[in-house]
């Protein structure tokens, strides 16, 4: 028995076209389910920022402990002032410490007054 010749490319293309033409439309119920999913996802995405607030970071916690940004500003001012005082070494402190260590027995009142005279001397 002779074998029948295979279909030609044209005939196959014809079959593919028939397949495309007869592709059944999706059931309306499926389309409705897909759209409902879209609505759920959209709703979840718009609600997400409120539902999951970002966890408090380290910086936020430190700021909270010292009273927020005004507290931080005060802390920075105090730190800078402390550094300046340390660098400047006011004379009063020098007088007191050197005399104390040198076992001086008397202090004048102005020994206790802060003085930054040294800062203005030309060096």
């Amino acid at each position, binding site marked *: 028995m002779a074998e029948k010749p*295979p279909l030609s490319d044209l*005939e196959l293309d014809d*079959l593919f076209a028939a*397949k495309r033409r007869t*592709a059944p439309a999706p059931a309306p119920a*499926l*389309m409705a389910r897909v759209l409902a999913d879209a*609505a759920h996802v959209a709703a979840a*995405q*718009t609600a997400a920022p409120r539902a999951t607030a970002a966890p408090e970071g380290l910086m936020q916690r430190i700021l909270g402990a010292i009273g927020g940004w005004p507290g931080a500003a005060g802390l920075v001012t105090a730190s800078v002032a402390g550094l300046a005082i340390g660098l400047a070494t006011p004379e009063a402190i020098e007088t007191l410490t050197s005399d104390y260590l040198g076992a001086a027995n008397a202090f004048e009142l102005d020994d206790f007054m802060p003085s930054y005279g040294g800062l203005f001397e030309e060096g």
Partner: protein
Amino acid sequence: MDLALDAFSSVSDELLLVAFGNGDMDAARALTMRLTPRALAQAARMLGGDRAEAEDVAQEAMLRLWKVAPEWRQGEAQVTTWLYRVVANLCTDRLRKARGVGIDAIPEPEDDRPGAEAGLQDAARARALDAALAGLPERQRQAVSLRHIEGLSNPEIAEIMDIGVEAVESLTARGKRALAAALADQRAELGYEDG
């Protein structure tokens, strides 16, 4: 729904997806109309005609599309290619879990135009093609379907199937030869006269 489809007919899939990512439900409707039939058709072919399971796959693939919308990077991939790839992966997973859907399981395609002779012949040809496709190895069936029924390009198919373009060409060529041989006996029924 037709109205929404018409209004968006000149807008690309990608722009619609970005619009949906920004909460536009009209864009979601247009994408649903456009892409669900294609996802369903691909799933039905890959799963051997199991309609209920194909619907599950199409719905799941579309759900993944909705979820990826806000992070969609424009210009990186085509939406359809991405979707076909997801459908292919979902079907492959399901086929691995439940091997052995036979040709007998393929349901008769629903005829949308009963009584029309051309419609009946199309239906008969589509049914014969389905049966012949089901007899092909899975990869050949997928490549032939994407190329000749969905009309995708070889590079797109290569991306979907995660193989090279040459491998796609080889799969489609072998698949078509096998189909042509398998259907040779049905020439008369299909309405083709012997050469």
